[in-house]
């Protein structure tokens, strides 16, 4: 069997585990979005969180610098122990920054949660299959990196537990949402990072 056909067999086998729709599962996992400072990874998750927060001042999102989301979340969580920080990122971006899971696990800030929307594909570039369709398990990698509080959510029945873990607050939490490879909500993104930074800081630091 050629490498490519092996890959397509594996992707087909994995597809049965990617059934949830991100457009409903992400808001259900987050719940009251105002309870978090949000960091959104690039591409799909930037759409997810822009929609969830209605482009609110409590979200800083990426449209480049792939791999930055989790570590921005760590810096923010260490800076603001009085706030809960939620990083929402995709499988593609997380695969590019796996070491950050180890760095975060060592620090283990209790006010940081990571939600990985894993659709097994690089959606933004045309839905090419990613490693997670081919056997790579990001929850196992998070666990192996030392993050103790982890869950995989791949069915409706598991959403409530995932939502609880994201808010538990006694250790850094990691929730892997397995979602089908369909588009995130269609919303207009603010792609001016400097404006996003100003809005976020003004909302957080200068609010009376």
């Amino acid at each position, binding site marked *: 069997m050629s490498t490519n056909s092996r890959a397509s067999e594996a992707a087909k086998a994995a597809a049965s585990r990617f059934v949830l729709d991100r457009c409903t599962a992400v808001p259900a996992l987050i719940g009251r979005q105002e309870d978090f400072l949000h*960091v959104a990874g690039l591409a799909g998750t930037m759409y997810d969180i822009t929609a969830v927060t209605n482009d609110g001042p409590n979200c800083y999102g990426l449209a480049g*610098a792939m791999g*930055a989301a989790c570590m*921005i979340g760590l810096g923010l*969580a260490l800076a603001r122990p009085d706030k809960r920080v939620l990083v929402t990122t995709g499988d593609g971006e997380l695969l590019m920054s796996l*070491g950050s899971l180890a760095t975060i696990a060592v620090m283990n800030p209790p006010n940081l949660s990571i939600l990985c929307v894993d659709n097994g594909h690089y959606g933004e570039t045309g839905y090419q299959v990613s490693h997670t369709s081919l056997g790579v398990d990001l929850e196992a990698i998070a666990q192996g990196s030392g993050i103790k509080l982890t869950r995989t959510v791949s069915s409706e029945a598991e959403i409530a537990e995932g939502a609880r873990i994201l808010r538990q607050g006694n250790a850094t939490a990691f929730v892997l949402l397995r979602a089908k490879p369909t588009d995130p909500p269609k919303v207009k993104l603010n792609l001016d990072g400097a404006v996003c*930074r100003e809005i976020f800081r003004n909302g957080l630091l200068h609010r009376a």
Partner: protein
Amino acid sequence: MEAKRDADPSGRWQNDLYDELRRHDVTQFAYVPDAGHSVLISRSLADPGAHSVRLTTEEEGVAMLAGADLGGRRGVLLMQSSGVGNCINMLSLIKGSRFPFLTLVSMRGEFGEGNPWQFAMGQAVEPVLNAMGVICLRAERPEDVIPTVRAAITMVFQSGQAVAVLLTQRLIGAKKF
């Protein structure tokens, strides 16, 4: 253990440098462990007022300091010249969002270097950083360090610039092979 191994009795300017950073409210210290920054690293580990963060690779620190700024805090990335190359694309975060960014780079691959592997990245540090919008300031002598870092702190945290202070091999000494 770490602190003991890293303690450098002749590290006068290194200790002054740590105090200078803390005096200016730098609270997040991010690094891949490195001999050139050993005093700063061990001081930050022993400091209950600072977060001392071991990275697996230097670009993590670029992103972390952006997060610190979003939360209204100040940080510094401590790295070796080889780490600069790992940061290139991540520096688009700094330039694109105009984050303040301070890094101290312990140089290899220049004055008196005995390991040929260090030259390619060491010699590329300044052009690479300049290309990504990071201003480079060099410290060549112990008495340069504090004034140079003080200037960098003003440029970064008052003027919102990205600045690298290069702790040159002439300053820190070439590693013996």
